[in-house]
């Protein structure tokens, strides 16, 4: 990972020095190795804080909505999953493609600091990954963990590849793998209505409505949103009924249906660990079943499933009869 970081830093410096771009979007060091945050670097000196490590899970494409409006080009480092969101935002005319220089960077799956901490390891100072072994150095010594146990939930089933790039920095090839990202959705579908209701009620009642899922979601970037309006009476009030969280999450999932690229950021940022990606994946699974395979963000052109139709579409009542194509 260190070699990739150096290569990225080298390119970022060259681009800024050469004046080809006005700013570079990447990740910035925090106090610890695991609290990196997205950042914009405008000078070579600022790049001192640049970092690319096993905890750079954040999707940078949403920042380009604002950055691509600025003067001068913006260079951005995009992981495979981020490029789908990027394409989707270009398609929706939110990102000005001509103002962005995309550098595709490799990603072998990112680690979840919370999952490592849950293993009883605190004061993490460094992390090294060799194949499937994660060597975590902490104040209490070195421990080796099994990588699939501690990767971000969104990386567990990721099979994405770069969909857009102006150049690439890929030093290690990610091994091909065959995983079913709908396995958990199918498990829920196999339950009875009561069980499903109990599952979602227990999950969603944890919601504190911090709006982190909305704020981080690349698809959730409407110019006007009711949650940005303090006069709407929605923000900052106690819940009176369990119903409210369900309503919020149903509507949010529907709003991004057909546009969600399954980047998994919603689940990553949820402070209550609600598996929000399972809501979006249900829509993706249904769209695949009913209207043919569709992956949002694969291209920056074409219509989305909800803005198109065919005359022979499935009827709503046949949805439950297992008559889907």
């Amino acid at each position, binding site marked *: 990972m260190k070699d990739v970081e150096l290569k990225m830093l080298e390119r970022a410096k060259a681009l800024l020095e050469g004046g080809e771009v006005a700013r570079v979007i990447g990740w910035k060091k925090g106090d610890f190795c695991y609290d990196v945050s997205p950042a914009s670097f405008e000078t070579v000196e600022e790049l001192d804080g640049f970092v690319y490590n096993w905890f750079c899970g954040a999707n940078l494409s949403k920042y380009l909505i604002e950055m691509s409006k600025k003067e001068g080009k913006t260079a951005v480092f995009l992981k495979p999953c981020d490029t789908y969101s990027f394409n989707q935002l270009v398609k929706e005319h939110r990102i000005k493609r001509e103002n962005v220089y995309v550098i595709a960077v490799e990603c072998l799956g990112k680690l979840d600091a919370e999952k490592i901490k849950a293993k009883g390891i605190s004061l993490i100072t460094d992390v090294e990954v060799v194949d499937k072994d994660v060597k975590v150095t902490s104040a209490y010594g070195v421990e080796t963990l099994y990588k699939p146990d501690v990767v971000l939930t969104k990386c567990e089933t990721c099979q994405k590849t770069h969909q857009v790039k102006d150049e690439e920095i890929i030093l290690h090839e990610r091994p091909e793998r065959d995983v079913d990202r709908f396995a958990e959705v199918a498990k829920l579908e196999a339950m009875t*209505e009561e069980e499903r209701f*109990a599952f979602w009620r227990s999950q969603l009642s944890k919601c504190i409505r911090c709006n982190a899922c909305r704020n981080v979601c690349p698809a959730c970037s409407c110019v006007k949103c009711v949650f940005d309006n303090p006069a709407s009476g929605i923000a900052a009030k106690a819940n009176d009924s369990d119903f409210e969280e369900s309503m919020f999450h149903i509507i949010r999932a529907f709003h991004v249906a057909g546009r969600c690229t399954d980047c998994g950021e919603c689940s990553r940022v949820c402070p209550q660990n609600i598996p929000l990606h399972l809501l979006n994946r249900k829509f993706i699974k*249904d769209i695949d079943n009913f209207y043919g395979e569709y992956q949002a963000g694969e291209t920056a052109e074409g219509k989305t499933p909800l803005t198109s*139709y065919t005359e022979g*579409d*499935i009827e*709503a009542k046949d949805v*439950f009869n297992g008559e889907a194509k």
Partner: protein
Amino acid sequence: MQEVTEKKEFTPTIVAFCCNWCSYAGADLAGSSRLTYPANVKIIRVPCSCRVNPSFVLKAFQQGADGVILCGCHPGDCHYVTGNYYTRRRMALLYSFLNYMGIEKDRTCIEWVSAAEGAKFAAVMNDFVKKVTDLGENKRLTDLRVKEGE
């Protein structure tokens, strides 16, 4: 003191979204043909079935509806040519999703009723009201604040 033993019979509240050009006229025809359908079906007239935003359906449930039915022109017959094709996709996904969240699938329904199908309108409503009555009160997707005190 006398104990009240009489049990209140459950009558569901049904919200029916009907498009102006077909289903609403179909409801009209059902009425003028003296066909009966339950009085607890509350019809909301919309310009096109496509006008029904998924949040309308949710709002109806929130405000205490026990079932929501959406009626529009038959696919291909939309007054606005393509409106109901979009409705069909949208509602197929929404209903499937609500079921995934644990809402009983019989609480949601979509039927195509033309202006000439007064008899079908009455039959559809009778059938739907019966299904929802069997299911009982909607407790999963309702805001407790709108329920009357028990």
